[in-house]
């Protein structure tokens, strides 16, 4: 019936499957997976203090480096105060000739978490491998 007017299979009609829609869908899926995979977490790994220390910290080796985050956006590396912009450079000068890449990070009670993470981030940039968290001050100390 309808076949007669179209001329059957003789003309420009093709029997091949049209794969274009499938390719479109697959491309979109591909793009979406590409966007999801970089969402793998990015973190700064920190070592937590031992909850049951065997030895009191009084006889710790004196060559530790402690980064203190101060209330007004300043940082202190052991006793040297340094501002936010100069922190990376200062850490580099400290860690470039040190074999042990360990830092302890201590936060003032009023600083924000973001400021502390910034300090850790800069430390990692300067080559620090291990970041230690100093324990929370106990009440009455």
């Amino acid at each position, binding site marked *: 019936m309808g076949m007669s007017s*179209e001329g059957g299979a003789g003309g420009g009609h093709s029997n091949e499957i049209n794969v*274009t*829609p499938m390719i*479109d*869908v697959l491309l*979109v*899926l591909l793009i*979406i997976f590409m966007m999801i995979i970089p*969402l*793998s*977490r*990015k*973190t*700064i*790994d*920190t*070592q*937590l*203090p*031992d*909850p049951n220390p065997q030895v009191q910290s009084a006889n710790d080796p004196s060559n530790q480096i402690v980064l203190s*985050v101060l209330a007004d956006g300043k940082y202190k590396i052991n006793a040297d105060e340094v501002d936010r912009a100069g922190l990376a450079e200062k850490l580099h000068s400290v860690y470039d000739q040190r074999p042990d890449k360990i830092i302890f990070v201590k*936060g*003032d*009670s*009023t*600083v*924000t*978490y*973001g*400021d*502390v*993470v*910034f300090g*850790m*981030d*800069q430390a*990692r*940039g300067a*080559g620090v491998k291990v970041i230690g*968290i100093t*324990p*929370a001050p106990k009440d009455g100390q």
Partner: protein
Amino acid sequence: MGMAASQGSVSSNPNVTPMIDVMLVLLIIFMITIPQLNAGFQATPPQGQNLKPHPEEDSDQVLGIDADGNYWFNKALIRQEDLEQLTKNIFTPDREDKILYVKAHKDLSYDKVLKALDLVAKGGVSVAALISEQTPGTESLVESDRLFESGGGN
């Protein structure tokens, strides 16, 4: 020249079927992902440059601390008093990885975060991975982070 071809049964209407297919797939995917992303806990983690990538795994334990200081453990709201016991139950001495992911809001007081870290340390966690966001347009200065990122599929 080419005009002769436009006479027959060739239609000049664009074929919208592929577009509709694509849109439907997008729609379905957004419908599935958006409720998962917004479920329960929300926090804006701090931004950083030198971050270590961790591929997500099912066994990962995530502690969230939102802007109000509430604790969320694997997206379920918990009380502060329960945190230590919860971590004790999960980070038993025979568990191999003692890593806990901590996603905390960036403007929280560090005290609040430190308090949580103290509790989970008592619960047997030895490494806290502080989840941060890569500052747009930056790359980690630590070589091993970049290696992992580009060669992660191998």
